[in-house]
């Protein structure tokens, strides 16, 4: 799927300060019916993440945390079954999962002697049943389930997508009879940083020589292009001097190959 820059900008424009809920996603889908759900979600997720990165700090001041916690306590005090935490997150324009984490941390601090470790928090977020307070467990669960950009479920989805696309890519390569070395083989050869696939015989796609393929399974916006170039691709370049960095959004590849 290849988007023009204009299309992308239009989508991104719509995503300013939209809460990461299914409702927002549904609206987006209605606005851009021609785009696939996955593309929209990917763009949405990236835009929202950028937004969160910008605003993250202000939600983590001790005052903010205290305010949120008090509001949560008040809310559940009035009605434990109401979506207090989710609404709070939406109201302050913060990711529900991250809000749940803030409150959970604060809660555990209050109820336990030792400050909770990160792994404990993560484990409770993955399985809210472990949260000692039933009401909070429900609230957290609600937040996680309703967050389409953050949270353990979303992470898992992303991971699954990455894995799936690697598998897809491998299948495509096999189908096209392109000989390649995958990441495991490369690692076995001692590469420290490896792309997903190195083509043993380079191919030309649209006039570019392609030596290797890295599937990022996400929308390749400018920002992520830049970041990946910095973090990964130059390393590949350094390790395989004649390589041309070729970022393959797997969606693009899918389209190109199918």
């Amino acid at each position, binding site marked *: 799927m290849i988007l023009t820059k204009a299309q992308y900008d239009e989508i991104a424009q719509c995503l300013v300060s939209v809460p990461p809920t299914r409702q927002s996603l*549904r609206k987006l889908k209605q606005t851009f019916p021609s785009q696939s759900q996955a593309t929209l979600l990917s763009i949405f997720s990236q835009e929202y993440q950028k937004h969160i990165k910008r605003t993250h700090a202000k939600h983590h001041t001790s005052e903010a945390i205290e305010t949120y916690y008090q509001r949560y306590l008040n809310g559940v005090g009035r009605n434990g079954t109401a979506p207090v935490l989710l609404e709070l997150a939406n109201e302050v324009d913060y990711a529900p999962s991250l809000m749940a984490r803030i409150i959970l941390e604060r809660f555990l601090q209050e109820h336990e002697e030792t400050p909770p470790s990160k792994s404990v928090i993560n484990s409770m977020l993955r399985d809210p*049943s472990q949260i000692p307070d039933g009401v909070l467990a429900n609230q957290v669960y609600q937040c996680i389930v309703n967050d389409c950009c953050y949270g353990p479920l979303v992470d898992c989805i992303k991971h*699954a997508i990455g894995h799936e696309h690697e598998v897809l890519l491998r299948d495509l390569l096999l189908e096209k009879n392109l000989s390649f070395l995958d990441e495991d083989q490369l690692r076995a050869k001692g590469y420290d940083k490896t792309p997903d696939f190195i083509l043993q015989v380079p191919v030309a796609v649209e006039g570019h020589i392609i030596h290797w393929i890295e599937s990022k399974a996400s929308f390749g916006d400018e920002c992520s292009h830049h970041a990946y170039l910095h973090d990964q691709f130059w390393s590949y370049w350094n390790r395989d001097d004649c390589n041309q960095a070729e970022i393959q959004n797997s969606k693009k590849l899918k389209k190109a190959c199918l």
Partner: protein
Amino acid sequence: MAAVLESLLREEVSVAAAVRWIARSAQSSEAAALRSLRPLRKEFVPFLLNFLREQSSRVLPQGPPTPAKAPGSSAALPGRPGGPSRGGRGARSQLFPPAEPSSAAAAEAPPARRGGRRRGPGPGRERGGRGPGGLEEGVGGESPPWAAGRRRRSSGSPGSPGRARSDPPNLSNLEEFPPVGSLPPGPAGRTKPSRRINPTPVSEERSLSKPKTCFTSPPISCVPSSQPSVPDTSPWGHGLPPGCRSLQEEREMLRKERSKHLQQSPTPACPTSESGSPLPSRTGNLTAEAADPARVSSRQRLELIALIYSSCIAENLVPNLFLELFFILQLLTARRMVAAKDSDLEPTPGAPDSLESPLFQSVHDCVFFAVQVLEHQFQVLSYLDKGTLKLLAENERLLCFSPALQGRLKAAYEGSVAKVSLAMPPSAQAVSFQPETDNRANFSSDRAFHTFKKQRDVFFEVLREWEDRHEEPGWDFEKGLGSRIRAMMGQLSAACSHSHFVRLFQKQLLQMCQSPGGTGGTVLGEAPDVLNMLGADKLGRLRRLQERLVAPQSSGGPCPPPTFPGCQGFFRDFILSASSFQFNQHLMDSLSLKIRELNSLALPQPEPSDEDGESDVDWQGERRQFAVVLLSLRLLAKFLGFVAFLPYRGPEPPPTRELQDSILALRSQVPPALDVRALLQQGLRARRAVLTVPWLVEFLSLADHIVPLLDYYRSIFVVLLHLHRSLVLSKESEGEMCFLNKLLLLAVLGWLFQIPTVPEDLFFLEEGQLDAFEVDTVPSEHGLDGMPVVDQHLLYTCCPYIGELRKLLASWVSGSSGRSGGFVRKITPTTTTTGLGAQPPHTTQGLQAQLAQAFFHNQPPSLRRTVEFVAERIGSNCVKHIKATLVADLVHQAESLLREQLVMQGQDGGDPAQLLEILCSQLCPHGAQALTRGREFCQKKSPGAVRALLPEETPAAVLSSAENIAVGLATEKACAWLSANITALIRREVKAAVSRTLRAQGPEPAARGERRGCSRACEHHAPLPSHLISEIKVHSSPPPCDVLSLAVGPRDPEEGISLDHLEQLLGQLGQTLQCRQFLCPPAEQHLAKCSVDLASLLVADQIPVLGPPAPRGLERGQARRLLHLLLSLWKDGFQVPVPLQLLLSPRNVGLLADTRPREWDLLLFLLRELVEKGLMGRPEIEACLGSLRDAQWPKDFSEELATLFNLFLAEPPMPEPQLRACELVQTNRGTVLAQS
């Protein structure tokens, strides 16, 4: 310096410490007594040598005419018997200035020598001009008697240049006793002085020339030299270098110290003079005085000095090992003590062990000392040729003084097979005609070709004429042949003709002069023979005879200057007469090329460790080949040096400082004719010094005086000095050079250091310059140095001057014929044999290698390259192959073993390091297979590759040989690598596998080892897991079925999910779990968890179903159907553990609490089904239920929960028919409702 010796004598300092002190620069463990003397360290050895020479001066006068001059001390030269005795001793003694402290006297000798023989220091010259009269002024009683020797030496008056005039003979008389490289004596029987000792015109400016302080003490010496032109002067006047003052102070201190001693122990020591035995006057009596061990005067002192002297020799602190041996043999064969003047020999009372008293007071002392030193040097002696050994072993003095040493020598003699033929083999004079190498095709025109042919004829004609006539008296090369040669050279117009002629010239040179005979071994061989034949009548007559016989080609003592003996003379004279610039240039080019070629010639290197007796012959061949190459190189290098430095050859006296500087500036920019420094460094690095250094020495020996001052060559000398120092003969370890190799290098280097053009101070360089050598000679592998390539024959061929030792001994025998003449007849030193020293054999492997070399030699070079390339690649591929097969298999084994281990030991499996050890110990032995497999691989792969790469037309036999060699080389390479590395490789791979396995085992242990992947028929069309998770969690695609978020809320009133979609979703989940193509464990885990959440929502009736009227709860039957679907997925679909206990978590059960009316039957149904399907055990469920009761619930909910619990417990363990269960639930529900 003297202080050092004194402290040694007083045993304040051990000899070992002293030698350490001398040899090493900064030793922390220096003896305290020596620490303060550090600045003087480098002067110690020259001092010692000079001291010994000086002390022996009275003993050696009657020695054979062979020069015995030590490099540093002209004073030590033995006098010539019968020399006119001019200049009374009294006068001579007056030469000493009154204030001279005795202890320092010895130290002063060297500068005298310098001054005399070379370009003495300025003050000396000035004084010299004044003449003896001036010097006589300051005679004082203080002058110690033992200084007489020196005084005697100083007898020469400035006006009488260098004629022996002393009685006792003037040892410093360099004309009489030419130190180094004396030329054949003139008609008068005098040895012509070598250039080194030529009287040098003295000029005021000379004082500015490069200071020469080497081998001497600081230039304060007042020891007069015999060189009248340069009488030395009393130093401590004006213009003393600072070092002198310190020496001055040292002397002062010594004197005080001594007087202290005297006061403390006034007992006079035993008189040391030989006063009891009046010395025979020098009357030309040649009979030697009998030496008696009992009459040795001060044994202890002699022993000590012998020890330190020997240590210096052993540590290579002396410039020339053989010169010292020669000196020692001279002492051994000293005939009688020179009649010392009584006043000189008066014992110094009270200080017997100091330097005050003469060291050698009698022949007994000399012999004792010599034998002592010889004992220490036995190792070197044992490597000398058989003839020398025999002479030594039969020496009656030696027998008398040390029967033990004599025994050892005798044994060495008997065991020695090193019969060096000193007889001259007939020189290969056959003129070679090799027209085939100079065919027409190589010439530009017919005319050039014919001209060249003519030139060949002229050349050989000239050569033949020279052969016939050069020995005729009065024949002169230039006069006889000069014009013809020049005419011939004139015809060589074209450059190509020059190169042709040069090739011919060089070939002829090699052919004629390569053989040892061509290098002037004649004398060496003949001298003993002559003595033998004549029966050793009288030394005088003998000497005359000998001189006559030997004169033309005398090797001139232990350190002869470079000469062009035999046929070499022809080529030298030819070059000189031709005096053609083009010819010289072409010759240099050609010589350089040939030298490079020969120097880098890969001489076969048989394994030095292989010692089986079978291949002696081959080894002999190797040695012969080495000898041929070495001798050729030396010859070529000598001529290269000759031609290269020919233009700079100038008048003897070095120029003034200013002139010298400007010459240096000029010369330093002239590139060397051949980059010998690089070749030397290469040679050292490749451990081929034994090949490179000897020819380099030849090259350098012909350098002019300026050369050693040039930075480029100076650096070479520094390297050579380091090398010399490092060649300690006693060091025998792995990787060390072979003894005879070392001996050869020591001999040639020692000789080089004595060449007149080489400044003496080079040897005693500043210590600072002697660093950073070790780095260079890190022994890389087995080079030539470690192989016994040198034998005595080669040693004596390269260094004929070693034969002087034998001559000296022989002349002693002949001289003492009166007593032991019988000896002479027994000596039959000249038999040509080829039986040479122990020949390390070598193996069939070596032979194979040689065969392979030979094979390649006859084939085009591309064949060799191909074979080597194939071998290299196949060997490398073999290793890769082993890695990919054997090692990979072993890694798989390791993984499965590890898994077993983990299963056995539980999940944690124990310490990873320990696991690794266990695995490796099990698997590494299998690595042994690698060699077999590697061999098979190479055998299989190499021939094909060779065949593919060689031309089709390659003969079958050549092809198969090439294939075999390739197989062999490849196998060798691969097996070498494998045998060295296979264990480490397996270890590394297994380690990686272990850590991989352990890591992977961490998060989802249960997923491991289970089936993965879907059936073959699967076409992977199942929905993607990510899609499913999204659907279950939040999904907004139409129709909206974002189940969990919808169920959990908040939701709009109209939101809901259709039952169909719900069923469809579960169906998709089933497909995905079946297909598994895209499923990764984390996704599956989340799917499992989501499904459990979904079940809980179903049980709690929280799923808003879109119905025709409005969203509502599910029908019970629908819910059960969905739960059934989920149950079967849990049972069969998921491969990860499903967190079913979450169904009974307080949170999920709590969902029920919010519903009105509460539906317990679905939960009970679910629990029963779980038990029935074996998904959960009853105890597990009971435990969960039990923990539920602990949670806080509304009172009514707790009661209902308790009822449910009881109901579940009340049921029989075996599942009842479903209908009945439902009824029960039904009843139960009724009860609950009734209660509420």
